[in-house]
């Protein structure tokens, strides 16, 4: 499958330091780099747990057998014990040798190669695998550092592509600096910027959007349903102990307590130091206490977003955000839970800021009001379509909240009365739609509309709409979903702008200096074409929103309006910068 390259590359401008000029983009997708191996320490970092267990075993066995040497009452004869110990140690030694040999062979056959168009990974000793991934299909690039890897200065580079389970390419482990360099190169190449062999890909400038303070993270966990459940269980246990006088109830609750503690620790560790930054490469997320993870999600790769607010977060008006990214669905479920969090906890103003980053163009004029009604509102305020009264039989608690709003760029679905939820799906990301109706729903004259996004935590649907409204939504939405893509940006996000600028090419050499590593605004001229491009009618008109803004920031010669724009671009916030006010009941 070849990607239609929407940006035919103009003739490369002769530039100093680039004797070859820019080659054509649509070459045969051959990786032309050299084969490289992972860092030699990799097996140790991967298998440290096995090693630790083995060591523990040896020490325990050795210790246990050595102890009886002191006294000879009851124990087996000395020489017998000695022989047994020798045999044991010998077996262990052989086992360790075998494992070491196997690790070495595995490490030896695992090689990767990075080309202009593809990344190749060879793995496997008995079952060999040779995987080749097209860079323009890259959905996200993560740099993951588990604790042990961090101590040894290594990182895992994960390339996520859409596909079944296990479709990601994991380069583990590389030196951290090497992983960073490779990440930059891959992103630049995926974006359509040509990086010559041996030439350093520049780091795209980034603008920090927000950080999640630790105290708020802790607060959000204290206000979670888990905490309440724990408190209730503890109270119940204490009451039971006091009433019966036997401490058995406390002991019985220990395993559950451990489980909850582990869960809480997990979410704390994941959300610790959460930072979001915007760059021409897309969204950058960094987080983690023991295991750190730095994610880069290129523009247009976020398929759907969910904002939700548990009951106890209402006081401080905190929200959490999740996202669907096609690549992360293929990760193991545990991993996916770590990677799909867009914002662990944030104020409403922060959530709106992040939303504006991912879906820059709300597609409505009164975006703040629409968003406010979606987050907390009920009824038909701000153009929302709500569920009819008859649906109270099917959803007695939350029927007033069920509803949707279609803007020029996205479909918004809200639901939930206790835990409020709002899903935002850009039209060009809707995969398919369905209309469903069960027998009860038919009696009540309601139907459910489901928008299918790529696998992930966000599953947008609107329950129990009045049947005609549901049919109308399906008709309109299917049309929008089918047509929105025509104006959407290209897979290689940096090529769009180059095409619009005409003269420029995404080749760093053509633009003289590549994207600078600092975010300082260059004076005057270079900004002009970018602004023009950002204001270009096609793309901004319908559907192209997700890509327009960040693409605009993706101009190779240095600029990046996206770093400056949010100031004058209100996104989903009010013009005065305040987010929508609650319109709850």
């Amino acid at each position: 499958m070849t990607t239609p390259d929407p940006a035919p590359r103009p003739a490369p401008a002769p530039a100093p330091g680039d004797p070859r000029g820019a080659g054509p983009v649509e070459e045969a997708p051959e990786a032309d780099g050299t084969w490289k191996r992972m860092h030699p320490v990799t097996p140790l970092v991967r298998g440290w747990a096995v090693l630790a267990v083995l060591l523990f075993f040896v020490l325990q066995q050795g210790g246990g057998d050595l102890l009886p040497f002191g006294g000879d009452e009851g124990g087996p004869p000395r020489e017998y014990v000695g022989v047994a110990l020798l045999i044991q140690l010998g077996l262990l030694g052989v086992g360790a040798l075998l494992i070491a040999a196997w690790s070495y062979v595995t490490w030896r056959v695992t090689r990767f190669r990075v080309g202009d168009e593809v990344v190749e990974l060879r793995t496997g000793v008995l079952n060999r695998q040779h995987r080749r991934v097209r860079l323009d299909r890259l959905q996200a690039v993560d740099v993951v550092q588990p604790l042990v890897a961090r101590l040894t200065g290594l990182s895992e580079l994960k390339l996520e592509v859409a596909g079944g389970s296990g479709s990601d390419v994991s380069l583990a482990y590389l030196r951290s600096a090497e992983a960073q360099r490779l990440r930059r190169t891959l992103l630049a190449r995926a974006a359509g910027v040509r990086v010559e062999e041996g030439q350093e890909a520049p780091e795209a400038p980034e603008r920090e959007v927000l950080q999640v303070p630790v105290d708020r993270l802790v607060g959000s966990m204290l206000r979670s349903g888990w905490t309440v459940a724990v408190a209730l269980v503890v109270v119940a246990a204490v009451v039971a102990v006091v009433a019966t006088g036997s401490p058995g109830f406390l002991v019985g609750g220990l395993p559950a307590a451990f489980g909850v503690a582990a869960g809480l620790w997990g979410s704390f560790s994941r959300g610790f130091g959460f930072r979001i930054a915007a760059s021409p490469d897309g969204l950058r997320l960094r987080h983690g206490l023991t295991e750190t993870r730095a994610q880069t999600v290129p523009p247009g790769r976020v398929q759907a977003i969910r904002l939700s607010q548990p009951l106890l977060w209402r006081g401080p008006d905190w929200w959490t955000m999740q996202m669907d990214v096609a690549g992360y669905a293929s990760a193991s479920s545990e991993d996916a839970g770590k990677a799909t969090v867009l914002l662990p906890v944030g104020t409403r103003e922060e959530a709106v800021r992040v939303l504006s980053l991912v879906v820059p163009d709300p597609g409505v004029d009164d975006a703040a009001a629409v968003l406010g009604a979606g987050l907390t509102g009920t009824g038909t305020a701000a153009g929302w379509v709500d569920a009819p009264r008859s649906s109270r039989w099917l959803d007695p608690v939350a029927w007033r909240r069920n509803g949707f709003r279609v803007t020029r760029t996205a479909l918004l679905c809200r639901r939930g009365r206790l835990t409020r939820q709002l899903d935002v799906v850009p039209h060009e990301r809707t995969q398919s739609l369905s209309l469903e109706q069960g027998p009860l729903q038919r009696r009540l004259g309601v139907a459910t509309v489901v928008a299918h996004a790529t696998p992930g935590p966000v599953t947008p649907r609107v329950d129990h709409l009045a049947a005609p409204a549901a049919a109308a939504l399906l008709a309109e939405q299917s049309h929008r979903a089918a047509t929105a893509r025509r104006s959407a940006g290209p897979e290689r996000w940096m090529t769009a702008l180059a095409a619009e600028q005409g003269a420029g090419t995404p080749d760093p050499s053509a633009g003289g200096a590549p994207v600078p590593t600092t975010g300082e605004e260059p004076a005057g001229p270079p900004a002009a074409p970018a602004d023009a491009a950002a204001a270009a009618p096609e793309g901004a008109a319908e559907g192209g929103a997700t890509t327009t803004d960040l693409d605009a920031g993706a101009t190779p010669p240095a600029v990046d309006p996206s770093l400056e724009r949010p100031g004058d671009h209100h996104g989903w916030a009010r013009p005065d910068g305040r987010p929508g006010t609650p319109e709850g009941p």
Partner: protein
Amino acid sequence: MAARDDGVFDPEGVAWTRVSPRLATVRRIGSLISHLVLLVPAVVVAVATDTPWVVLLWLPLAAHLVLRLVVIGRQVAALGYAEREDDLLVRRGLLFRSLVVVPYGRMQYVDVSAGPVDRRFGIATVQLHTASAGTDASIPGLPPAEAERLRDRLASRGEARLAGL
């Protein structure tokens, strides 16, 4: 057909194509087999323990079988698909109805499959896959020629409108 429907599952201007009625036969055979298979252990137990009434335990299943045989015909009649300019529509279900709309541009691949009984009766299933696991756009009961035509047509339309994910 959705005659008594309020039109929710019958968008305006859509000409539905029905699937082959042979699908009903195939499904009836499948239903018959799955129900009769459960009769075997009942008979075995009845003979082995000399308790003939054990066979009666199968009666509820027999009732279910009769119901299935009747309903299958109507279910198959309710199945339909339509190729519009930009998307494919698939409609199914009597009690629990659903209508799936898949824009051609979102299509990742198309499957054509046919089991042994399907092949004997000359039908096949075409299934459209998007990047979403939720998309359930399978059209069973197509004559092989139509299945192939549909597959090629979907593939070519998808290619014309292809835009990555």
